[in-house]
């Protein structure tokens, strides 16, 4: 009896050691580039060239981050981006919920065709339609105007819309029919049922859609670079932070180095991603829940 208990204990220990190794290893792989960025940003120029140090630095400095902040025109582009992302998120929640609710709760003939449309928007790479879309918005002189992007969100034809529509459809399909029937018996019309009975149930899913849209719009470079040419947005400014810095130094007639430019890139990325990491850490629950719901309902 005693040996059995010992064997069991040993087995448990082995399992947890293997598990811990695995999980810590993978977590490290994921966090490594982030840690590296963090380490690089605080280095002074001498430390960068010093190959005896990888993570630490002898004279940590905030200068790089400050310069990156200035190069990206951070304050202005931050507010622009935040506003754009918030509006995008709100519009996307509205449009995707409408489609998801319609497909999840109502029976009509053309549903499978419309579902096919939704899937099509998912599998056709946006690059296929980027050129005609650019010409279209160019003709309406909506380039460099947030309206163009917001129109896409408001009609649910934007970045990964199909995914959210699919998630919401599955969610609404899973709600019990009795809810609707009870509302009908109590004399509520379709609109009333939708707004006061069904949608409150989908609150969490809607938050998920909002957050994902927010984050993916924040990091998006595809639509953003297509629709905005001279507009202060973080993702655009981050893409060119290296060359902006180069130009800046050149204008001041100061020497520069590929290493410094690269450090600027890293500092810029860190500044860029910081708000998102904060949002993720605070709202982690909502991010994961949306994906989980889709799995359970499937």
């Amino acid at each position, binding site marked *: 009896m005693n040996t059995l208990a010992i064997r069991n204990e040993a087995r448990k220990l082995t399992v947890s050691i293997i598990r811990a190794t695995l999980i810590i290893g993978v977590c490290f792989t994921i966090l490594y580039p982030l840690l*590296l960025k963090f380490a690089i940003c605080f280095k002074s120029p001498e430390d960068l060239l010093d190959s005896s140090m990888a993570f630490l630095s002898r004279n940590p400095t905030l200068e790089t981050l400050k310069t990156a902040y200035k190069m990206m025109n951070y304050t202005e582009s931050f507010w622009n981006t935040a506003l754009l992302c918030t509006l995008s998120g709100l519009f996307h929640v509205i449009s995707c919920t409408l489609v998801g609710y319609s497909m999840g709760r*109502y029976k009509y003939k053309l549903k499978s065709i419309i579902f096919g449309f939704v899937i099509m*928007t998912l599998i056709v790479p946006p*690059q*296929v339609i*980027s050129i*005609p879309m650019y010409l*279209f918005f160019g003709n309406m002189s909506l380039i460099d105007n947030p309206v163009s992007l917001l129109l896409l969100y408001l009609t*649910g034809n934007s970045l990964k819309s199909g995914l959210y529509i699919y998630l919401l459809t599955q969610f609404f399909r899973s709600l019990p029919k009795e809810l609707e029937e009870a509302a009908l018996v109590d004399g509520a019309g379709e609109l009333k049922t939708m707004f006061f009975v069904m949608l409150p149930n989908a609150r969490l899913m809607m938050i998920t859609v909002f957050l994902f849209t927010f984050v993916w719009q924040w990091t998006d470079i595809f639509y953003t670079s297509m629709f905005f040419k001279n507009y202060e947005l973080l993702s655009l400014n981050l893409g060119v932070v290296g060359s902006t810095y180069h130009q800046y130094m050149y204008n001041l007639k100061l020497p520069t180095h590929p290493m410094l430019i690269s450090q600027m890139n890293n500092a810029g990325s860190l500044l860029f991603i910081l708000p998102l990491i904060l949002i993720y850490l605070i709202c982690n629950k909502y991010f994961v829940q949306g994906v989980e719901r889709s799995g359970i309902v499937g």
Partner: protein
Amino acid sequence: MKLLDNMSLKRKKSIFGYLLLIPFLIGFALFFGLPVIQSLIFSFNNISSEVGKGVVYKSVGFNHYTRLFTSDVEFRERLVSNAVDLYVKVPMIVIYSLFIAVVLNKKFRGRNFAKVIFFLPVIITSGVMLSMESSDYLLHTVQNTISQGNELLETNNAAFIDIKTIFLRMQISEKILQYLMAIIQKFYDIVISSGVTITLLLAALQSISPSVYESAAIEGATAWETFWKITLPLVSPYVFMCAIYAIIDSFTNSSNRVIEYIMDTAYGSSLNYGYASAMTWIYFIVIALFLAVIGGLFARSRVIFYYDI
């Protein structure tokens, strides 16, 4: 109003359903359908924009397509390498996600923290971040500095040779070996593209009722048997979903080499819209074929226990 009153409830409901779809359908027609048709027209034309005339079309028939299949070596090379890349990545993403999901499904300390970290790549390696990372010079330099300091791992290549000799001694055939090496090289890629799939599978695992496991344990099934006979069949629809998700995700990713080439042709120095459109169409057909084959395989082999998407 009278008309509405006379309609059956069912009819009224379906009309309301259609009404909700109106914004989406307008958008779909304007921002998806129209551009898709236009890009099809582009692919049979040479497009140039001239001052005063706007966009000028010059019909070239199937020339762009024949050029793609006969003389453009680079496109073919990129397309094939992309497909091979997928063939390595997708099975690994699915297997890895399932494995991690099974591990995370057990209770242990730090589990929630691990979950948070595993989902983090979805946030921090999307869009512009991905391109910033892959092109960065300093990140690679520092990485080399670290591996130089470590005697076991002198350089990445030396480490690979070590692993290779180990596998060769185990008398593994060359083909499998190549596959394994590709996996090791792409490990980071696999890890960062599995955030969504892990969460999906984890939720699927949690939806399996514990009583099934209990009865299996009473019947004397080992953990190994339980996994193959209970867990895997019950999550198989989600495994299929993950495979589809991974394929779409990697095909439409902007760091993808084919997409890079397309964007370069369209917006780069040559500004060849027509040719780029032809490429995107071929590319789209390849994606559709891929999805059809995967769907067909899963449906044919009857590995999916319950299938309703």
